[in-house]
């Protein structure tokens, strides 16, 4: 059996939404080089919709694929939906990850949450009531 699912390899070989958004509305970076994974997410938000999302990742194939899939799952969606993105959803959309690589999907979820936190810190008026 191959190390990764075909979906993981597809997103690893052809990552979607790679790059940077200049003057992004929200930027989030999680992980650290010591552990071998860093993800950085850039969001452009208009009318409470994630109009654009880009990522940069330092990490293994599952880290790249998780970032790529996470961007696909939130692009064009209302911010309220992006807020609810879970690592489980990312992993499932990739047809699963090996158990010891699940943390890559967690990082993807955290990177997006972190970018949304950044957005809300710049636009506190948009923050949903708790």
């Amino acid at each position, binding site marked *: 059996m191959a190390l990764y699912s075909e979906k993981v390899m597809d997103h690893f070989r052809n990552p979607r939404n790679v790059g940077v958004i200049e003057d992004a509305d929200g930027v989030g*970076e999680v992980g650290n080089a010591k*552990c*071998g994974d860093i993800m950085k997410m850039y969001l452009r938000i208009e009318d409470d919709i994630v109009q654009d999302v880009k990522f*940069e*990742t*330092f*990490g*293994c*194939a599952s880290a790249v694929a998780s970032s790529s899939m996470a961007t696909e799952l939130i692009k064009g969606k209302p911010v309220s939906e992006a807020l609810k993105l879970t690592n489980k959803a990312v992993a499932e959309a990739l047809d699963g990850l090996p158990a010891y690589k699940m943390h890559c999907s967690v990082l993807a979820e955290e990177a997006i949450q972190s970018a949304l936190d950044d957005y809300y810190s710049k636009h506190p008026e948009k923050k949903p009531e708790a």
Partner: protein
Amino acid sequence: MQIYADNAATTKMSRAAIDAMLRCMEEEYGNPSSLYGIGQRAKDIMEQARADVAGVIGAEPGEIYFTSGGSEADNQAIRSAAEMGKKQGKRHIISTAFEHHAVLHTLKKLEQEGFAVTLLDVHEDGLVRVDELEAAIREDTCLVTVMFANNEIGTIQPIREIGAVCKKHGVLFHTDAVQAAGHLPIDVKADNIDMLSASAHKFHGPKGVGFLYARKGIRLVNLIEGGAQEKGRRAGTENVAGVAGMAAALKESAAHMQENAAHMQKIRDRLIKGLSEIPHSALNGDASKRLPGNVNFCFEGIEGESLLLLLDDRGISASSGSACTSGSLDPSHVLLAIGRVHDVAHGSLRLSIGEATTEEEAAYIVRNVKEVVEYLRGFSPVWRDLTSGKTPFIL
């Protein structure tokens, strides 16, 4: 193009080894312990293999014990020396921080059993200093175990000098020669080696078989109890086909050692030169005191598993010391031992070429590694921070 550049992981079996094995499987399938003809013929094959292996490393046939591979040989050698030491009240062992886990984990167990272990620094160049080793020897030191050549960065240790120091102080010397056997000249007597481990599949023999050389007079402890095979030191019906294949492969490797080494060294240095052109990269381990087939680099700003998988897509099989490829959160203990920080150690690549690797293949490897490293750096946030000056370059 398909290029196998992971010969330190395992090698393709030689024709001679396959033929020797087939003969044992198809014709001489007897049990060497049986008294009738077919059994005794199997025994003859096995004893000839023992003599052949002994001949290559300058040992006596009676000093060669067949094992399931390098790990078993390492375990048995270290356990045996520890047992001998214990009887004399000596419970101190000296080794290095970058040994194979077969050695390090055995030493860890012995620590739990009351032994003290000193792990020598291997410095930035991946080489043990003989004076530091001598200074570490204590009254109660029973064993020094230092690998002949490192499996990841290929550095060749000053084995003969280490052996001489051990001899001078009356301390047993074991060397894990898994990467060296069949590739470097070994003479256990001249090199002052008391015990040596080797594994067949690293020199074009079969997997699952290796040997332990133990100088006459060393009493081995058994890891496997049972029948009286291997002079009562390793029970279980012998892997006749395996040892025959191993001996055939080792003899062939030894016969062509010089020319193979000269060829591989040329290709190796071409790879090192080519890969050094990648900015913010560094060769791991001394450039000249290294195995003829070993190339190991760190590339700043990228992660090794991604590099490996993209090289695989381009037909190149290599390996990496990144955490993701080691199955733990830490990168290779070898790279950490030579002082590479985690951030950089994650971006390592080992290419271990073989006798069959060509100049053309080396050029292909260099071209593709350059392209893939550049591609991965293109979307690495670490690389962005380095190039924008936010964080300083390490390499």
